[in-house]
């Protein structure tokens, strides 16, 4: 008999059991290899469609007033403008947060102990405080204008809100950077060192390029989260989609049966925006995992 036979189970002989080596000692890891067709878009469409179509139909109100569906259609352009504003805020917050987060993440990996400690504390605080609390913090404590080199720069609410959202992004990105750099095997550092690379060169030319791919899925995940969080700006008085939704509702006479379709429309917009990102993230994760 062929000696290689003894080393492991033969897949062809027991198609019902996956060949695993010592299952007891398998590492703890959540398997991310979920089958691709697990969550099919059709489910989401069904539920969101239900929210917008079925609810208004069920709640048909008086004769003269517009039907809930007509109200949604009538105001859709305005509401979509609001949604575009949410997207804009999220993109800006993401850009600022990513930039600051990479710096903070590298600071957490710095050689200086003090710098490492400070960076770590900042990350912890901004990761663990509720985003809404951070938003309040920025809205109330950052002045409405700042003076830079004698020039007064006004800071409108939405700018402050963007800044408020970029804080948690920063902390989460920092954590992603740190985790990704940590996951590169130590031998890479040693190899670079033996080739006389400086620490900085090693980081930028060898380590970071390797983990860029690894950082992409969690980074996209953070983006989806921040995009969904932008509606919280309405709580602190920034005019965005949710604020407009409430205003539209009031403009249509504040009929209670309009709430569900209007908020359902907001749910639908965000779903259509975030679900593809979610799928893409999961797809990338799977692809990177198998390589």
């Amino acid at each position, binding site marked *: 008999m062929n000696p290689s036979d003894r080393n492991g189970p033969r897949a062809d002989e027991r198609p*019902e*059991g*996956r060949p*695993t080596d010592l*299952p*007891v*000692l*398998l*590492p*703890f*890891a*959540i*398997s*991310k290899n*979920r089958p691709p067709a*697990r*969550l*099919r*878009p059709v*489910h*989401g469409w*069904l*539920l*969101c469609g239900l*929210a917008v179509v079925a*609810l208004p139909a*069920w*709640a048909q109100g008086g004769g003269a007033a517009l039907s809930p569906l007509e109200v949604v259609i009538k105001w859709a352009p305005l509401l979509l403008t609001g949604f575009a504003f949410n997207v804009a805020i999220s993109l800006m917050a993401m850009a600022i947060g990513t930039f600051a987060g990479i710096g903070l993440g590298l600071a957490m990996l710095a050689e200086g102990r003090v710098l490492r400690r400070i960076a770590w504390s900042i990350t912890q*605080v901004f990761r*663990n*405080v*509720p*985003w*809404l*609390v951070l938003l*309040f*913090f920025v809205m*109330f*404590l950052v002045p409405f204008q700042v003076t830079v080199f004698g020039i007064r720069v006004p800071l409108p609410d939405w700018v402050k809100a963007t800044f408020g959202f970029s804080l948690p992004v920063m902390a989460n990105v920092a954590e992603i950077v740190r985790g990704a750099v940590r996951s590169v095997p130590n031998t890479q550092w040693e190899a670079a060192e033996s080739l006389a690379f400086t620490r900085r060169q090693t980081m930028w030319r060898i380590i970071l390029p390797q983990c860029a791919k690894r950082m992409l899925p969690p980074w996209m995940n953070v983006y*989806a989260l921040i995009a*969904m969080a*932008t*509606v*919280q700006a309405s*709580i602190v008085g920034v005019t965005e989609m*949710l604020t407009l939704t409430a205003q539209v509702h009031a403009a249509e006479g504040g009929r*209670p049966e309009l*709430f*569900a*379709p*209007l*908020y*359902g429309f*907001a*749910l639908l917009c*965000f*779903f259509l925006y*975030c*679900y593809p990102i*979610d799928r893409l993230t999961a797809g990338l994760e799977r692809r990177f995992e198998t390589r």
Partner: protein
Amino acid sequence: MIEAVQAWFQRLYETTGFNFTVFYDPYDWNRYVAGLRMTLLLGISTILISLVIGAVGALLQSGPSRLLRGLVNGFVVVFRNTPPLVQIFFFYFGLGTLLPAMRTADGLRVPILDNVQWAIVSLSLFAGAFNVEIFRSGIEAVPKTTVEAAEALGYTRFKAYRHVVLPLALRVCLPALNNNLINLLKTTTLAYAIAVPETLYAVKQIWSESQNVLEMMLVLLATYAVLVGVLVWIMHRWERALRIPGYGR
């Protein structure tokens, strides 16, 4: 003791202008404590309910019924990919006004669920959707052969689930579960938007009446730092208690 603390904060205000009203004004203190209680109520109840939703959802997802699987998948997809704040509004304003209401003796409309209950419902569903995914990946991580061994010993499907699959799956998914539950605790602040008097709401009331935004902001930050810290500590204790010697890393 209490008097000493109160006197200290009173003096702090008089000498430095730092006005921590919560720590010397019994009225503000009571509001703050009531808010804290509400946050704890929201946090604990939504954590428990979302765990149940996650466990039941994960079971249904691996069950035989295609319809149920589809429904659970749809639920997970929708609640993961829409903003929790809009979910809360949709439930509280949208569904809350559509549901039939009871009337009191003097004809006042009393909704079946009040804002606190709606907040609990929608936050639980939101976090539950994530828990379903987390539990499912945990169950999938249990080796098929281990389940086979249980079957060979005569375990029924259900008993194998209870005694072998679930205990192992729970250990595998605990880190992810940790994260989600901590996130949930932070998300309870969104109940502020439907006027649930939780910590953020109470603190904001205090600072708008006592004009001490900065001080109350610091109290707020400290409060959440402590709450999250306590939850992290509990979860770590739990993780340690469940650790199996020689298993995993």
